[in-house]
């Protein structure tokens, strides 16, 4: 078997692609580290905050190794990170890794629910709209969709709380209940924030799916399938869908990236203690170690998502296999 052929074996390719992440991840760590260099003024002061005294400042500086040159600090910091030590929050001293792992389930639940909602609503509707191409329905849909895309999730969240939760008392206005305390409350608490979070993404994914579907359904091969007498249903769900999925999956991946960012605001509105609200608090407090931790974790997560998206391409588009 030739070298090229070995490179093309799925397992090897998976490993190869995974390895390709490493340099990107390295750049992400550099970026995260560089954040600490952006801080104006003395980080020791920032760490000590109200309790700063000259001797404690000096002590902290020595402890942080702020007197060492930057590359050395980076290597040292990277070593810590690789051994799982993301440092401690400047604000309260929680190990960053602990606060992130504690909050991870919240954000994963929220973002997961939102993306699920997005996909379940947007993809079938988008495929259908792309196939039907009815002019009036299109106009209405595109109007709704542009408004939907313009709605800021945090504001929608506020309004949902005021109207649905406080006004009508239908759903809890606040908080997150782990699934371990009952699936019912868990889901109930997720509905409103996930809805607020999902609206713009659903609109965008709907549009993209429709565009992709329109494109695919105007492709010559769909005409071939129709000429050969294949049913509309199988074209919609199989022959066309597989091709349309490449852009759709791309957009899903992008949405997932974006949702994590927007989740920060929605978490703040709904008082959910997730990664996003951690990022907000950390940014407000200039809590650099926590910010760095969030950047690393989110960056790593997004890389993995992108990897999955990339790998899915080769399923949907066999041309990429060679």
């Amino acid at each position, binding site marked *: 078997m030739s070298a090229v052929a070995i490179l093309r074996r799925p397992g090897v390719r998976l490993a190869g692609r995974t390895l390709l992440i490493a340099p990107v991840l390295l750049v992400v760590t550099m970026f995260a580290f560089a954040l600490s260099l952006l801080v104006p003024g003395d980080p020791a002061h920032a760490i000590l905050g109200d309790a700063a005294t000259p001797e404690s400042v000096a002590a902290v500086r020595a402890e942080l190794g702020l007197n060492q040159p930057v590359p050395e600090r980076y290597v040292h910091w990277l070593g810590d990170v690789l051994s799982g030590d993301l440092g401690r929050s400047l604000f309260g001293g929680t190990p960053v890794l602990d606060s992130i792992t504690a909050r991870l389930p919240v954000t994963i639940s929220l973002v997961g629910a939102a993306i699920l909602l997005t996909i379940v609503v947007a993809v079938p509707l988008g495929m259908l709209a792309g196939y039907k191409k009815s*002019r009036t329905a299109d106009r209405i849909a595109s109007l709704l969709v542009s408004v939907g895309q313009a709605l800021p999730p945090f504001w929608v969240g506020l309004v949902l709380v005021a109207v649905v939760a406080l006004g009508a008392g239908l759903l809890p206005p606040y908080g997150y209940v782990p699934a371990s305390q009952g699936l019912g409350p868990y889901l109930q608490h997720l509905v409103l924030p996930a809805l607020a979070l999902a609206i713009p993404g659903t609109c965008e994914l709907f549009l993209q799916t429709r565009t992709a579907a329109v494109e695919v359904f105007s492709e010559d*091969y*769909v*005409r*071939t399938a*129709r*000429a*050969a*007498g294949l049913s509309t249903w199988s074209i919609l769900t199989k*022959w066309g869908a597989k091709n349309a999925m490449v852009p759709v999956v791309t957009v899903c991946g992008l949405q997932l990236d974006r949702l994590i960012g927007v989740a920060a605001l929605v978490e703040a509105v709904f008082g959910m203690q997730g990664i996003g609200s951690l990022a907000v608090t950390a940014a407000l407090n200039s809590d650099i170690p926590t910010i760095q931790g969030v950047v690393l974790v989110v960056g790593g997560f997004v890389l993995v998502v992108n990897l999955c998206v990339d790998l899915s391409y080769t399923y949907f588009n066999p041309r990429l296999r060679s």
Partner: protein
Amino acid sequence: MIQVEGLNVSFRTPGRAPLPVLSDVSFTLRPHRITGLVGESGSGKSVTALALMDLLPRNSAEVQIGVLRMGADEIDTATIGGRRGRELSMIFQEPMRSLNPAFTAGEQIVAVARRHLRLDRRAARAKAIEMLKLVGIPDPERNAGAYPHQLSGGMCQRVLIAIALVGRPRVLFADEPTTALDATTQAQVLSVLRELTERLGMTTMIATHDLGVVAELCDDVLVMYGGQIVERASVDELFRAPRHPYTKALLACSSVGQESLRGIPGSVPAPGHWPTGCRFAPRCSLASAGTCDIATVPLIDLPGDRSARCLRLDQTGETR
């Protein structure tokens, strides 16, 4: 046999008047024979085939078919959809793009076989390989597992033929099936079409702008210009003695001699810009004001089972 009478197609764009692209297209195709539909770009060849396959976009194309007969049965145009692949099939111009890039050649044939022949997975697979063999694809077992991008253009076109024919249709429309192919590959594909038409007793129509292909392959010819059929004849008669001035000019253009470099003055008028009367009149050396530009010219029957749409047939002579 398939008989079409009074096929009219126009396209609607919002805010504009409907744009007629086919007017009163009528013809008969016979089994075991290949009919060539020739004409320049935009003359309406593809639209003719697509209209008969009911593959034009529903919301913009307005299709009227006076009579459509297959064999002895008159066919309701609303039922065409259900006949695709089983009675009528079609192959297209760009073989690479007409195959689904996400599925293997085999999978695509299997899907059609299972739908029309109600076969199980294994039988359908065997059928697919049989079809690949039929269209002359070497090593069918292996090539069945190939994705379109792994096949050459000629192979793709043969796979398309296999897909079109697996449901055993009686009628096959081929829309410029070899335009995108190299000369040597074109020869291969044309041979396959010729052979299968005869062997399977199909009624085949091939749209092309290449008179060479017509001469090579066809038994009968329909010449199209500006959405109309302007001349109909058997291939020998047409080449021997074209009667319509357009056919004449077209033949002159494609010949080898120096006269071929003159071309036809002007260009094919776009739909909506057709002159009244004879649509070729503005480019025709025989056209005379007051005769050719008055009213729609009918298709005039001529001796020898042929016809032409021209008012100056007296001038166009019997022989070339």
